[in-house]
């Protein structure tokens, strides 16, 4: 079972969503599933945080959305990365790696 208390760091959710969409376009539920899968269940994104984030990122121009058919033939809104989104993913990934390296070093130094 995922640990329900693991809070997402500010900015982490954005990075996870960008990463989830890096290979294919997905609908909301799909993004949620993909994130759970990528983090081996550590992060489970609820609708209450997912959708505001999606809308914010779409307004920022990182994502585009379109209506389509899901694998179970339901109407669903699919999200895909834009060019800016990909650039953002690259930048965020680099930033995150720097931070995590620094954090790891710091924690080891203790």
């Amino acid at each position, binding site marked *: 079972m995922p640990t329900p208390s693991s809070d997402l760091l500010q900015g982490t959710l954005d990075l996870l969503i960008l990463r989830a969409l890096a290979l294919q376009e997905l609908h909301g539920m799909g993004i949620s599933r993909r994130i759970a899968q990528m983090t081996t269940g550590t992060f489970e994104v609820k609708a209450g945080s997912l959708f505001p984030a999606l809308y914010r990122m*779409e307004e920022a121009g990182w994502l585009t959305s379109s209506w389509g058919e899901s694998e179970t033939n339901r109407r669903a809104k699919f999200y895909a990365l834009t060019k800016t989104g990909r650039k953002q993913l690259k930048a965020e990934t680099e930033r995150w790696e720097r931070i995590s390296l620094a954090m790891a070093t710091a924690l080891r130094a203790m």
Partner: protein
Amino acid sequence: MISRLLSFWKNLFRRRQLDSDLDDELRAYLEFQAAEKIRAGMTPEEAYRAARCEVGGIDQVRQSVRDIRTGALLDRLTQDIRYGIRTLSRNPGFCWVAVAILALGIGANTAMFSLLDQVVLRLLPVSHPEQLVIVRETGNHYGNSYGPNTISWPMFEDLRDNNHVFSGMFCRFPADVTIGYGDRAAQIPAELVSGSYFSMLGVGAALGRTIAPDDDAVPDSKPVVVLSYSFWRTYFNADRTIVGRTITLNIHAMTVIGVAQPGFDSMELGVPAKVFVPIMMKTEMTPRSDGLKDRPRRLSWVTAYGRLKPGISPERAQLSLQPLMHSILEMEALQPEFTRNATAADRQLFLRNRVQLLPGSDNDLRENMRKPLWLLVALTGAVLFLACANLANLLLARATAREREFAVRLAIGASRARIVRQLLVESLLLSGAGALLGLLLSFLADRVLVKMYLPAGVAADFAVSPIPDWRVLGFALAIMLLTSLAFGLLPAIRGSQTEITPTLKDRSGVGSLSSIPVRRLLVAIQIALSLLLLFGTGLFVRTLRNLENLGPGFPTDHLLTFTINPSLNGYSDEETKSFFERLNINLETMPGVSSVGFSTMPLLQGYAWQNAIVGKDFEGAPIEQQPVLSEVGPNYFATLSIPLIAGRAFTTQDDGPANYAYSVINESFARKYFPGRNPIGQRFGLVNDMETVTPDIEVIGVIPDKKYRDLRETPPPQAYFPYFEGPKFRFMSVYLRTHGDPRQIEGEVRERMRQFDPHVPVVGLETMNEQIGFSLRTERLVASLSAVFGGLAVLLAVIGLYGVVAYVVTRRRREIGIRVTLGAMRGSIVALIMREVLILIGTGLIAGTVLAFLMSQWVRSQLFGLSPNDPATLAAAAVALSLAAGLAALVPALRASRVDPVTAIREE
């Protein structure tokens, strides 16, 4: 960035579409979740319930998505506005009262500001008006003067040619000229200007060209004229072929060379010029008075202007001009014109004169209106402040009544900030509506005020634009925001502090009693302010009454007056003399006219002819102490019904040689110069620059003191000479004593004058009472407006007091019921309430009195015949206010005494 703008656009105008998209998306999400759970073996109902639990409330998700959208703030604002309109319209009575109070308050302020702006604050409509200064000389000029801001022509030339602080100088002189058209003539205001006038001002031509330095190089050489734009439009019907044609000014043919740019009609507000003429044409435009070619230094007549070089402040320029001014004065003090009559002491004083720079827009109208207008602005400001206190009170009451609503909103999760915002939005809606209505009111009011204040001819040209300019709009917007904060903030904060649990539990709202002290304070402020306004009203109304009752010192009913100037038509001295002799006979034989009086100085118009006099025991004096003079016709005193106390009036036999031989003086003159002696037969002479004079004018009569310049003055020493003796005839004021209502023969007089001489226009034909009424227009304006504002203030204060007392009575019903049950008499209940009311009124009155005494010095100059601390007026205002307020409070107090104890106690 672009995607942000796009989504802002989308969010703004396609909200419905976005919302339904979001709903679809969330529903799909829910179904995916449920489907997954069904696959895992749940029943459909269980699956959907679990899914909904996991999502955590569709509404919350929807709201949080909305909140992050770009423009969400605007979204919530429109929500607040919509909600505000709904709440307000549920209470239309309150709404109308509030909007009406605000419209009056904001309207009055905007009207006053717009008037102040146009009359006092605004700069000239020329390029870089802030660089323009008037160059004047302070102190006694020792000679004749056309006004405090004028200097002599030679001094202007000296300053112009020798200064280092101005990029250029120009000068002007206003004069009335006659313009001939067909067989008719009219008198129009002209501006004589130096050649650099237009170029220095940066004023261009709408048609043709303006006056250039070449046009103004040699006296009498260039008979050219530039028309003002509005004159060209009204008088010549905007005829574009006018350039190159000639018009007749006085008797001289003048070539029109152009039309000045629209909106520019002279350097002086309220004195618009219709034509501009080179100042070198002075002799033609003002026959019989020159000052230009003969270059007298003891006659100051031109108003000189300088344009400061960039980076030079007026203070620095003034300092660096002083040595130049001093050297001019030293040179002038050696001239015979000066030394002939000036003593050594005079010379010392004269050399201490200084150069002074004034803002280029200064003039008499501005100077005279500055104080009254600021006063009125202060009055309207006080009314607005009072209105704010009143509205704050109303809103506090409303906030109390709406406590349950706030408690409910807080309970379901609204933040307190949101409640404050909601209430402020409601205040803003009210003041916005008030401001719109107020702007409309102010526009109407300004038109009435301008008409009331300015002479008819000027008011027509004085365009109050139908579209208020940005300054006035900005002002209205600023006071709208300020007022909505002033009256809305306190109730809003109070409202947001609602305690949820007790309010929802207890219907009587115990917590809300806390707002009563604040409301009492607001009422006390209103009473204090309205006392101040009422007291001011009393002072101004009594000032007006004093001035009207005192009168000029002679009966003014049945008097008709006009002025006339045949010399502008080029009539010689002989012709002018004959003109007046014939006119005298003509008018005396007119039906309805009992007597005709002529005077070269118009009465009570602010003009004065002053001259130092010499006699056996006295000699020349500084200008403040010089007597005022006039030349009058034989029937002048009889026409004005001024009796002779001693001696006799002039007869036609007194028509003597060119110099004055006989004089009629007033009592003050006799007291001052011939104390303890019989003035009849005494002699004096008029001091003259050109020669040493001997006292040879004989006093033949004495009249009682009467006013000369205006109604406010104490009658100065006066001396009159028969006009036929005068060496110069210029303007003549004609006074007609009529049998009946003078207004009825106005038309006949005009027609008779046209037949008498169609080329000499009659100017300012009106009754003496109309003329006096007009001269009191500032006092009347202040008195009537302060009466309106004072009445408004009292009304607001009384309503405010009534509201608070009624509120307190309602809140204390239960307590009163218990008191009555325990045996309290009705009278003691009334006394209980009224005691508090009287304390409240008393506090307000004391505060108002202190304020009045603090501000009394400020209005002193606007009063006549009473002190700014006049106790009777203050007492009357206080009594009137207390009575009105006391009566207003008595109504709810009596209602309280009729409380039925049983229902009152059971109710709660």
